């Protein structure tokens, strides 16, 4: 049961990720990305992290992607006019080759890796909170709130028409 769900979600994530980078219309890309994010959330849940799975849907699919869609609809974006990549076909080909090389390298290492026995694992929300608010991460956590505030102010300043 879990296996079927895992591989179905993985396949869905891959296909929708292809949609994200393959579609000319950015709205389709956005919907593809939403599907990717939701299937990743299922995988997070199966890997024993319900909290991260919920956050994935709330933050990514529920907030960030709504923002993307809002901007796409606000600007009334049409499809890209020209299919070949920027900088011409040569640069695109080089980019594809480099990425393929990277993926092949990392994949070769990973395929050879032997999965060990999974250790006991408790990713309940309470444990998450204990680690997140321990001295190890507490200051980082506080710093991210400043980051969010800065982003908020910056976004308003950038998008505002005139001051």
């Amino acid at each position, binding site marked *: 049961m879990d296996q079927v769900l895992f591989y179905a979600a*993985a396949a869905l994530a891959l296909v929708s990720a292809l949609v994200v*980078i393959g579609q000319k219309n950015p709205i389709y890309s956005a919907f593809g990305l939403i599907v*990717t994010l939701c299937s990743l959330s299922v995988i997070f849940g199966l890997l024993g992290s319900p909290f*991260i799975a919920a956050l994935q849907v709330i933050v990514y699919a529920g907030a960030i992607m709504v923002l993307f869609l809002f901007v796409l609809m606000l600007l009334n*974006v049409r499809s890209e006019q020209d299919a070949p990549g920027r900088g011409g076909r040569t640069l695109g080909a080089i980019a594809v080759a480099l990425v*393929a090389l990277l993926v092949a390298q990392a*994949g070769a290492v990973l395929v050879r890796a032997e999965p060990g026995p999974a250790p006991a694992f408790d990713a309940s929300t309470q444990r*998450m909170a204990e680690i997140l608010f321990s001295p190890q991460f507490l200051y980082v956590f506080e710093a991210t709130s400043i980051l969010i505030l800065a*982003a908020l102010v910056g976004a308003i300043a950038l998008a505002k028409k005139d001051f």
Partner: protein
Amino acid sequence: MDHPSFVHHAVLLSLALFGLGTLGVFLRRNVITVLMSIELMLNGANLAFVAFSRAAGTLDGQVLVFFVMVVAAAEAAVGLAIVIALHRHKDTLDIDAFNVMKG
């Protein structure tokens, strides 16, 4: 729940997602699609974090995913604000049109 090959295959999937995201960043012309490809790369990284966290039995990876999400939210907000400003300025979203430093 604890099928041993889950972690292994999740890491492979994260690699594939990261690769696809990188391709999107290189090949797409629309700024918003490029931003979405970056989100795809971040998600590939997140999946690797969660999978390795599961394999190691510690929660540090999950905490990092939490921070990645925060940064991604900030990045999306600022990035999209820049996109709106650029669109107002040039009336296009083609990334090659934004090649002048002077406004």
